[in-house]
């Protein structure tokens, strides 16, 4: 099996390398990919959308449908993780570990379903990961607000610098995931609950599709943001810029919520109790 696989892979690789003889040279300005539609994007972006970052204007305006369904794919992936793994109503494992905070002694409680997670002098810890790491916890607690601030900047400044909804959303999701990794999964779920997360996941896609539907109801095509001009009291070109921003916010929320949801589900195998 290994030999057949190796043979197939080497043959495919040789054929592909042979095919590169017909490829354009690396960095060729006259290559087919750079000659048909992309010059129009670069030359008209400022004029038509007032967005200097061409990647953002192509992403959310010229190819708005594509991005809307990419967001839907991400939403569907989050829902798929949830349906595959989430076990509703399970009370977590019966055996739990509690650490006595003043002395640092850890006790194991068999059948701890009736013991609350928070006690006066005890804190609950994961059964797989026991060490108490003050440095990592403190460093993450200081860093997380700045990570979130930076994420909001990346979303909001996507028109003028590299950034946008996808990147900012991932950073925002990473800040919550860092929380879950440095403390434990329960600490992050306390701050970003499962229901809130599911709601945000759907709300992001809804904001995107809703912006398109709003354009439709104003008498233009779906996702033609120029239709928003009377609502925003500005000219149609500026309305496109604002429309792109609304869509980017939707993408950011959806991506953030989906990343957190996938992490929560996969790391705790659907129990939402003890994670990595």
């Amino acid at each position, binding site marked *: 099996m290994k030999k057949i696989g190796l043979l197939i892979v080497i043959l495919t690789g040789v054929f592909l390398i042979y095919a590169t003889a017909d490829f354009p040279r*690396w960095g060729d300005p006259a290559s087919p990919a750079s000659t048909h539609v992309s010059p129009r994007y670069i030359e008209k972006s400022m004029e038509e959308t007032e967005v200097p970052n061409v990647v953002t204007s192509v992403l959310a305006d010229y190819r708005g449908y594509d991005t809307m369904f990419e967001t839907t794919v991400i939403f569907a992936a989050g829902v798929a993780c949830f349906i595959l793994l989430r076990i509703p109503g399970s009370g977590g494992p019966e055996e739990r570990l509690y650490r006595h905070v003043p002395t640092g002694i850890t006790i194991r409680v068999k059948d701890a379903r009736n013991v609350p997670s928070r006690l006066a002098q005890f804190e609950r810890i994961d059964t797989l990961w026991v060490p108490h790491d003050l440095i990592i916890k403190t460093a993450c607690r200081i860093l997380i607000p700045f990570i979130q601030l930076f994420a909001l900047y990346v979303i909001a400044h996507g028109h003028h610098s590299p950034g946008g909804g996808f990147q900012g959303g991932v950073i925002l999701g990473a800040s919550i995931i860092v929380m879950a990794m440095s403390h434990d999964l329960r600490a992050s779920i306390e701050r970003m609950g499962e229901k809130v997360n599911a709601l945000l996941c759907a709300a992001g896609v809804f904001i995107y599709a809703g912006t398109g539907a709003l354009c439709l109801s104003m008498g233009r095509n779906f996702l033609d943001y120029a239709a928003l001009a009377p609502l925003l009291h500005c000219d149609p070109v500026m309305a496109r810029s604002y429309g792109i921003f609304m869509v980017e916010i939707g993408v950011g929320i959806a991506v953030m919520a989906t990343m957190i949801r996938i992490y929560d589900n996969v790391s705790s195998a659907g129990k939402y109790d003890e994670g990595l």
Partner: protein
Amino acid sequence: MSQVISEVLAKYNYWIYITLMMIGLYAMITKNNLVKKIVGMNIFQTAIILYYVSIGSKKGGTIPIIEHGHGAGTHAARAAEYINPLPHVLMLTAIVVSVATLGVALALAIKIYNRYQTLEEDEILSQIRGK
């Protein structure tokens, strides 16, 4: 000789991506462990992403953000000065989607492990056939 060298310099990026892609394909075909197959799939995706990004590059071009400082908006943007934004747009979404598909793949792997107590493909197959 110089022609061969210039040909290599113009195409070696594609060869690197093909090598990377074949490593991923080999892992997907021959590895027995399901997580290794998923890692192979991710290597494959990375090769495709690198390939697209390299298609977008232009010699002498800068990042596709139009200069718009004081007085810079007076002259129109020329396409030759900026690299192709389209592959960047496509790969931007593809990266996030690849993370999402990785999550679904890992969720499936967890379900398979819970059912068969193993992630080795041949052991799973023998368990299925044994029943």
